[in-house]
């Protein structure tokens, strides 16, 4: 809110001879500024969370989450995605480097996962298909499982 509005209101009050309103005007102005700060802080926090969503869910957001975002936020998300993709392509030589994988240093190549719900068939790199049934345990390459772990279908078993 520009300072002019406040000054303008003050001048009007002075010219109409109602100078006792000036403290109220100042006070109202402060309240409005405060509200504006709160709203901006809220919107900024939302933006930071949306940015974190790209790192957690990948490029495609689940519909349940998209439902809660407004059009401008979706637009911002797409821009951020593009920006990140350009950056990733510029690293690591020819093909670029996907830095959204392996955010923590991996301890091993394969991990043991436990299936929390029936998910049906799942294909891994060499074409073989694994049947993910509830309560079965599998020992699979880590990069294939990360997506499903984030979705809550698999659980990493640490023994």
């Amino acid at each position: 809110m520009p300072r002019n509005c406040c000054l303008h209101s003050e001048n009007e009050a002075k010219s109409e001879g109602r100078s006792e309103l000036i403290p109220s005007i100042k006070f109202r102005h402060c309240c409005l500024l405060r509200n504006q700060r709160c709203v901006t802080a809220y919107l900024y926090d939302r933006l930071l969370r949306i940015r974190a969503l790209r790192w957690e869910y990948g490029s495609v957001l689940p519909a349940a989450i998209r439902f809660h975002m407004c059009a401008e936020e979706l637009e911002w998300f797409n821009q951020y995605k593009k920006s990140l993709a350009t950056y990733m392509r510029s690293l690591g030589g020819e093909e670029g480097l996907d830095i959204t994988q392996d955010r923590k240093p991996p301890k091993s190549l394969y991990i043991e996962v436990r299936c929390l719900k029936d998910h049906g068939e799942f294909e891994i790199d060499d074409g073989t298909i694994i049947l993910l049934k509830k309560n079965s345990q599998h020992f699979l390459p880590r990069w294939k499982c990360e997506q499903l772990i984030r979705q809550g279908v698999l659980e990493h078993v640490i023994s």
Partner: protein
Amino acid sequence: MFVTDIRKEFYDIVVNQRVALLVSLDVDALCACKVLQALFHCDQVQYTLVPVKGWQDLGTAFLEHKEQFRYFVLINCGANVDLLETLQPEEETIFFICDTHRPVDVVNVYNDTQIKLLIKQDDDLGVPSYDDIFRDDEEEGGDQDSGNESDGSSEPSGKRRRFDEVSLIAARQRARREWEARRREILFDYEQYEYHGTAVMVLFELAWVMSKDTKDMLWWAIIGLTDQWVHDRITHMKYVTDIAALQRHVSRHNHCNEDEDNSLSIDCMRICFEYDLRLSLYQHWSLYESICNSCYTLSTFKLWSIQGQKKLQEFLADMGLPLKQVRQKFNSMDIAIKENLRDVIEESSNKYGMKDIRIQTFGVHFGFKNKFLATDVVHAAAALLESVEKDESGTDNFIKALDCLSRSNLDQLHRGIELAKKKLMAIQQTVASCICTHLILSQGPFLYLCVCLFSKPLALTLLCKYLLKSFARSTRNKRCKILPLVMAAPLDVEKGTVIVMGIPPECETSDKKNFFGRAFEKAAESTSSRTLHDNFDMSIIELKMQDRSKFLDALVTLLS
């Protein structure tokens, strides 16, 4: 066929492949599974683990996974039935079976291509030789051909030749009938008794041969062996022999790490040999409760009667243990009392007729607080495996029990111990009430009983064993002392089924061979009762409630 070099013929084959592990629901299988999983993690063998409860589950799991896997490892299931006929696999599927159930089906033994048995051959297997059971079919074809020829042959010299040939054919057919009769007899002798070996020892030896064994695997091997002993599946002789073998491994591991200068940190795992008391869970309970709920003391003192209670009080007074101390939690007992407890108890129990109150076993401790005996872990895992809380399926319980075996899931283990305590108390109360109200009926060749609470195989096994032991001590009837026991318990009220199980008679030197498997099959056939032989142990079946009486009558006639 039996695998001679387990490393070359099993491990080196699967190490570059993807494997499906089908594991049965008992503690020995869980331990074997953990050992194998640890080995697979070392070598990054991709696998899928599926728990199976009985033959139907095995069939379903196989159907679901047969497209994706070529190698199947079956743990504690599949050896005692013709597997190829039951599952009908493709030509390239190979099964590795590590099973404790004996006798191993003869087709599984003599199949060279698809079935590999990971079983030690120096167990007393008694497999009949190949020629006694199988016979080439060419001879039969030869008979037919010569028969045809003799029909179509021409006249007079033909007639004499035909006479010779006919007598030859008759001789061959007679020999064949004799051979078949002998074959039936051999197979009957071989298959009539059911008994057990150990699964986890085989896998632990594999780990040792590859020098990849760790203390964790050794501890799992110990738990697996103790499970076989607690649930009365192996003879005492075998238990002691295997304990001696494990003791060598324990010494080897202990000497590797400790010496004067660098001793192990307190958090590392230490396994030690203990000549400890046969009181279940006594270190996690109070001494008094443990004595009241352990099979050995329960049956010796006859704690269901008033004289028994008095005797127990005498026993405690004899040892000089004040009641207040004995009823406290074991960890809070006076240290002076705890120090010589085992020796004091052993001396007094000799007076009361309990000669082997102490048993060779192992204990583990890691950290300052965590000390467990092998029997504690066995009881905890078995209780978790069969907990009857709502909304828990068999496979959920399998996961929980599997978790409690790792050292990082101590709260699961403690939960298991609490459940085991409840289970033992329930067993003790049932035993007491059954004996006091004379519910056990002698049906001629066996004793029979019907209970209401227990419907899971492992808990039912423990109940049967405790009950038979107590009954054998309490009855005056000499004949009844040596009878086997058949127990029935309602399984599913809606479907109207009961679970029936039979155990061999109670005897000091019994060889734990159980003939009820075949007996149940034959009785079911002869009365055409609606039974389900789903459990991997043939001596546990499900039966419709209405068919119970005719089934029992048939069983009585069969066994008399």
